[in-house]
């Protein structure tokens, strides 16, 4: 295709990408390197019911408005917010690095810093859920594909249910089941023989519950993609393999999986991105005592009584960078294929 033609074809998409992807990124980057002006505080007498009048500190709005009018973006802080304790915690990291004697010590102390604790959970979630989703999705796809055609529609519907249920509802249902008065919770209490046993009070069990939820919720997506891929599998290849005496396992390993490989890459790509941004189950499971992710930090920053826009923006930028790092191997491969194709 000539470059000029390509340009005209690409223009609408390019404009949409500029508007909906590039500009928001520029906006969060800008917000993350600016912070609100220093607050001008004054002491005033404030009167409230049942208490009477007391001296309270408040913000001098006129002085603050003047500061804002002069520099509407706020004060420039550079990367300060990225490096503060709520994010990369550079100073604290340095102190821990210098003071801890062993790796175990260091990881324990790092777990006290919100960013690193969130990363520990997020990366575990990504590393466990992504491969399990792919394997489970493939198994379901193969199983459904081998069913009698009258059963297929029904099974596809049921297999898709976890994806049809909105994530927050799905996690809430599981959360209630896991409650110490719910069906899973009381079963666990009976099995453990300890009336104080609680899944929600244990960080380890809570992580497992979140991981199980993650796989449960995402497997249908992988299943649908692989099932569609299976419909394009040429039957002569399978027949040839059967004539050669391949077992069912060998057929899957040497014929089916290689055929589906591009789809595996696709599912892995989407899942890596989604899992890195894990959010709904943490909220749905009320798991903030045990697990955090970058997305739940953004939620906290914006949901508190005092909104922290700069902090939320910095976390957003870190999320974008994190996703880019996770996807880099796949992106590099795609780039190589592209170069090779030319």
């Amino acid at each position, binding site marked *: 295709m000539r470059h000029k033609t390509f340009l005209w074809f690409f223009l609408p998409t390019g404009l949409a990408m500029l508007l909906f992807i590039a500009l928001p990124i520029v906006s969060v980057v800008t917000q993350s390197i600016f912070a609100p002006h220093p607050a001008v505080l004054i002491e005033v007498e404030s009167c409230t*019911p049942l208490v009477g009048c007391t001296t309270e500190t408040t913000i001098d709005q006129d002085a603050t408005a003047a500061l804002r009018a002069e520099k509407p973006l706020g004060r420039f802080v550079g990367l300060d917010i990225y490096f503060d304790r*709520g994010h990369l915690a550079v100073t604290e990291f340095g102190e821990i690095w210098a003071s801890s004697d062993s790796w175990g010590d260091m990881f324990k102390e790092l777990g006290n810093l919100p960013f690193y604790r969130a990363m520990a959970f997020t990366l575990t979630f990504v590393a466990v859920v992504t491969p399990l989703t792919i394997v489970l999705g493939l198994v379901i796809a193969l199983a459904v594909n081998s069913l009698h055609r009258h059963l297929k529609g029904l099974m596809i519907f049921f297999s898709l249910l976890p994806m049809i249920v909105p994530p927050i509802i799905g996690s809430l249902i599981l959360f209630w089941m896991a409650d110490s008065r719910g069906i899973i919770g009381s079963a666990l209490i009976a099995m453990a023989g300890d009336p104080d046993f609680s899944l929600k009070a244990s960080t380890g069990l809570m992580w497992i519950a979140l991981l199980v939820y993650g796989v449960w919720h995402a497997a249908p997506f992988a299943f649908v993609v692989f099932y569609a891929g299976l419909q394009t599998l040429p039957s002569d290849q399978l027949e040839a393999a059967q004539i050669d005496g391949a077992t069912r396992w060998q057929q899957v390993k040497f014929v089916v999986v290689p055929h589906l490989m591009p789809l595996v890459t696709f599912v892995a790509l989407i899942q890596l991105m989604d899992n890195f941004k894990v959010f709904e189950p943490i909220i749905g499971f009320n798991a903030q005592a045990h697990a955090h992710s970058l997305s739940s930090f953004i939620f906290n920053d914006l949901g508190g*009584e005092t909104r922290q826009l700069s902090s939320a923006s910095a976390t957003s930028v870190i999320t974008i960078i994190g996703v880019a790092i996770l996807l880099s191997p796949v992106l590099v491969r795609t780039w190589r294929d592209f170069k090779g194709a030319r």
Partner: protein
Amino acid sequence: MFLKKIALAGSMAAFAASAGYACEIGARVSIVGNEFAAIQAVGAAAQECTGAEVESNLTSEHQTINVAGLSGNPSEYTTAIIANSSIVALMNEDVVRPLNDLVAKHGDGLQKSQLIKIGDDIMAVAFMANAQHLMYRKDVLEQAGVAVPTTYEEMLDVAEAIRSQGIMQNPVGGAYKAGWNLAQEFNNMFLGYGGTHFKPGSAEPNINTEAGVNALNMMKALSEYMNPDFLTHDSNATNAEYRAGNVAILNMWGSRASQQTTTEGVLEEVAAGHAIAAPLTVGGGSIPASTLWWDGWAVGKNISDEEAEATFIAMKHGISPAMLNDETSPLAVWLIEGYQPTEAAQGVFAAAQMGTPPYPMLPYMGLMHSALGNELADFMQGKESAEQALADVEAAYRAAAIEKGFLQ
């Protein structure tokens, strides 16, 4: 529930009509606020006004939308129903207007104590007071042969008595959900031990103190008598446990008192045994380990004068003495003229009489509250010491306060 609301609105409309309180407004009114029963009643009464549309969006997520909803020009909402904690966020962002002119023009009938004054400016009009105080099952305490506690130390004894006699496994209830609720329980206990959140006259944190450590240790001791899932229980979940008869004693919001016995599905023995009392003191202190709150409304800044005036008239109508009746009176401790306290109000009044401190109305208190909510769960799970948890809170608060320009 739905029928009840209709009946409530209907009876109030009839009452207002018969009393002859007319309400004419000339511009739009749009309300955002929390969704508990007392605020529903205020919103419904404001909607009786005629002449222009009165919209209301009452939701438990009000606090995440009210700043944005008052920021545009003209803004989506013309008024926000707020409490002493949430008005700070609105004042920090400068999205609410002083009401002095409107009070002078239309303020007859409002009591002086209802006007929230910051310096010379009236920033809000309060209509109800709230505080956390003791609720308990008198039948269970009698069965266990213990007296009603007045301190948290006695509450531990009561809990031990109930557990050891096998009456209930986890007799203590508490809204200890990690986040806002857990932080609020810490605030209560910390103030009860005589702590102050900030060094005098500055935004420097001051919680890693003896009072802070004592407060955390007391919370930990109480949590031993709670449902093991306590870090996931907010007020709603805690009350559900109480109404299901699983909990005998708890520190709970006064605004929930009247609903403990009237909510659908509450057990008969709970309804019969429910009782309320003053908030508890702790550590030999004289002021209760609780905080005093008010709920009121503020008027947006980014609206026309006509809209501000209409909003003031409608909201004043919403909290006029005419809205008080048998249905609405028990819903809250109203600050409205002519309010006759009901049984359910005695806990909050006791809190006020005992000198319960008001929730700190400081520009940086919201950041402290968030930091407490995020960092205390580790201690409650036994993962770190009280000192470490409090040091973490201070560090997290400091980072946030530097970002927002409260600290250098």
